[in-house]
């Protein structure tokens, strides 16, 4: 059990773009930090510790915890780096939660960032996989995701058109989010007519590469309600890893999100997640995951994901909107991506999501996804946990 209850009291994001040559990494980080401090009405002096991360190999520059201190505000403070691949952002959130929940730190600044424009994303991702057994045929994130989609389609009969419907949803939602990189609606026909990258994934089914940063401030129950009248309380966090090599994966089902969300529901006493959760910011790097992973999350029965998507239930105005921000398909500064899901879920709970606000949010779920099919999950709530 945590020693202290923990809440998010402020968030900040850059306006994410495909290329930000006007700033270096440290300056990009500073933009997000300044916005988070302003949002919480705090100064850097109020911050007790900094948790920061990205995927070093994307920029080819190591140790952001050290070189970013001018921009991060970490000068002469405890700073720690966490980096876990695609889940980096959500792991940062979970790490920051642990800092505050332990009772050792009262106010913690959490920063995720990436400048994907500074290198070749597919090449860099490849270096995260085993040189002996994985790399011969490996082709970056898309190859594993394509294998997942093929396996699911063979088993449950979903189609490329079903997946396109998910992409249409997220790209439409992104138009409400000024921070999203891609804000243009597309049709199902557009998605299906876009170039095939790796069967069955089309260009418009997948996430872009983005430059951007996100900062989140977490505070303990001793001060959270003094900082903001509407804190976003972290009810539970969970994380699961299962596989070593891509060939080990149980393709077509995401075991890690099933187990991690199961732990979350148990901790929070949630029995019917589809009814009790009001909004989800899903780390969904491609459209098919929007069908497959909502089944693993226990929101719908196995094989019913596509039907649920077509019903409109996950659209804005539906019974369980997914990715009001536009999600990862619209914006993907990789080391920040998981933390953006967390920040967006916090905005929903705090009632600060503006044009993308879902009404009356009591519980929000945010997730992170990475490399060899691993998962982080956080549950956010309006009410202070018991």
């Amino acid at each position, binding site marked *: 059990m945590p020693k202290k209850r923990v809440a998010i009291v402020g968030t900040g994001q850059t306006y994410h773009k495909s290329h930000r040559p006007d700033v270096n990494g440290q300056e990009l980080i500073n933009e997000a930090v300044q916005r988070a401090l302003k949002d919480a009405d705090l100064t850097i002096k109020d911050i007790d510790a900094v948790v920061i991360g990205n995927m070093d190999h994307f920029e080819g520059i190591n140790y952001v915890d050290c070189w970013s201190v001018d921009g991060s505000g970490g000068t002469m403070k405890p700073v720690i780096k966490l980096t876990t691949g695609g889940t980096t952002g959500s792991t940062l959130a979970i790490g920051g939660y642990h800092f505050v929940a332990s009772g050792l730190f009262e106010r913690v600044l959490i920063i995720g960032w990436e400048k994907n424009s500074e290198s070749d994303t597919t*090449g860099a991702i490849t270096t995260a996989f085993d040189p002996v057994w994985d790399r011969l045929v490996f082709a970056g994130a898309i190859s594993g995701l394509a294998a997942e989609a093929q396996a699911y389609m063979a088993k449950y009969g979903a189609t490329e058109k079903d997946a396109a419907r998910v992409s249409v949803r997220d790209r439409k939602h992104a138009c409400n989010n000024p921070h999203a990189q891609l804000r243009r609606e597309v049709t199902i026909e557009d998605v299906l007519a876009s170039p095939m990258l790796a069967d069955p994934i089309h260009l418009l089914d997948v996430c872009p590469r983005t430059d951007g940063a996100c900062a989140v401030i977490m505070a303990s129950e001793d001060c959270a309600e003094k900082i903001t009248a509407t804190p976003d309380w972290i009810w539970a966090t969970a994380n699961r890893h299962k596989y070593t090599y891509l060939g080990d*994966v149980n393709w077509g089902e995401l075991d890690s999100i099933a187990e991690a969300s199961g732990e979350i529901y148990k901790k929070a006493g949630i029995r019917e997640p589809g009814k009790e959760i009001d909004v989800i910011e899903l780390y969904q790097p491609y459209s098919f995951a929007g069908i497959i992973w909502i089944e693993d999350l226990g929101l719908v029965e196995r094989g019913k994901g596509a039907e649920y998507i077509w019903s409109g239930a996950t659209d804005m105005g539906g019974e369980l909107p997914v990715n009001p921000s536009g999600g990862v398909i619209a914006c993907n500064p990789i080391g920040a991506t998981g933390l953006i899901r967390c920040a967006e879920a916090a905005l929903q709970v705090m009632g600060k999501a503006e044009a993308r606000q879902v009404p009356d949010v009591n519980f929000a779920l945010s997730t992170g996804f990475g490399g060899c099919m691993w998962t982080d999950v956080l549950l956010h709530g309006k009410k202070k946990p018991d």
Partner: protein
Amino acid sequence: MPVKENLIIESTGHGQPFDYAVGLYGSRFFSELRDKRRLLGVKCHKCGKVYVPPRRVCGDCFVEMTEFTEVGPKGVIGTFTILRYAFIDPETGEQKPVPYGYGFIRLDGAGTLFQHYISIEDESKIKIGARVEPVFSEERKGNVKDILYFRVIEGE
């Protein structure tokens, strides 16, 4: 850097400054592949799962595995994709040979999938469940390229 016989990573004749260990289990797999064209897995005595590539520890049971068992060389396509977008292979600095078939092969007797190229000469035959066999390289060095690719076989 001189090119060594057992190099895992080579860029058109040039070695790269990495020296990865494959371990005793990996060495045994590659020796059998090179010398006898046999593929080896290792079986967990607790849960019975056969792992390819072989490794020392079953992650689920967290016990050491010692029972090597021959798998394949034939199998079925567990899942796959066909890569169509061009990208630079960081291993070689050259463009990957797109389009290419990326197979996750369930070798006969194995509980995991083995990743390798699948020949896509006839794309209509590339389906989950299709029978495949490996095509071995004539000159084998004891690495994963000793198999050139897998190809779909019919009439079995």
